[in-house]
């Protein structure tokens, strides 16, 4: 998505990325970024919270108009629910489940090889 934002901006249309993987977006380098520090899946706010989603969109639109130059990041004043430990949960590597993860990886590589064979056919 960050690469798409760069291409759109190069075509002369201003963009804002709204989302949470701040390190990945800023590593790519984008014109404008509104950081919503929420779990991956809900970049615009909690599910079923239209008030929060509206505040996030309004902030992104104002950033679209007001950013002084490229690589402008703003931090939206949103936090996740009362759910301690959510940050540690995504893509967690449990040392006691290494064999299970390895087996999942094998299955994933098998499916990827199948998909590639179909594409190349």
């Amino acid at each position: 998505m960050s690469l798409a934002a760069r291409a759109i901006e190069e075509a002369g249309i201003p963009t804002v990325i709204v989302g949470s993987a701040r390190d990945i977006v800023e590593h790519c380098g984008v014109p404008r970024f509104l950081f919503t520090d929420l779990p991956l899946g809900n970049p615009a706010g909690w599910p079923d919270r239209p008030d929060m989603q509206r505040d996030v969109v309004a902030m992104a639109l104002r950033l679209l108009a007001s950013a002084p130059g490229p690589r402008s990041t703003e931090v939206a004043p949103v936090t996740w629910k009362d759910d301690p430990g959510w940050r540690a949960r995504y893509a967690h590597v449990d040392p006691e489940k290494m064999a299970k993860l390895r087996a999942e990886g094998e299955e994933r590589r098998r499916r990827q090889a199948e998909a590639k064979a179909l594409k190349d056919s």
Partner: protein
Amino acid sequence: MSDTTPTGYMERTRLYYRALGYGSDYVWAHHADAPFARLAKPLAESRIAFVSTSSPPDRSNRDDKGGRHVWSGPTDAPPDRLLTHDLAWDKETTHTRDRASFLPIEAAQSLAREGLIAGLTPSFHGIPTEYSHRKTIDVDAPELVRRLRDERSDGVLLFPI
């Protein structure tokens, strides 16, 4: 890790894929600079386009070999649900059953009624998340730009899941 330190997604992803047995780490796109364009009109006169990484419910963005393509849907009658299960997101912590939590069309329509923007463009757009930077740069991004220009989009908000 404290609960206020932003998650390091690159490091987390590297460690996860190593645990899955992948031999080489993913290389994220990296640029020291970024392009920059300004709104050609005041915000209140601007028509805004929305872009998502999700797929349509009928999977019509996929060809018969499983390849995924840029797609568009109507902003005046957006689907209640969009497909997200093929993407990497925190499926243990949250859900995507509320489409507006990742493609908040109604929020923009409400702000347009109040005069913050002129409105949304007739279509929102979907762009696949691809492993290959080249596919995004050479194929998907140019197609997305073409669609944005067709509808005279003045500005774009992108919501990666």
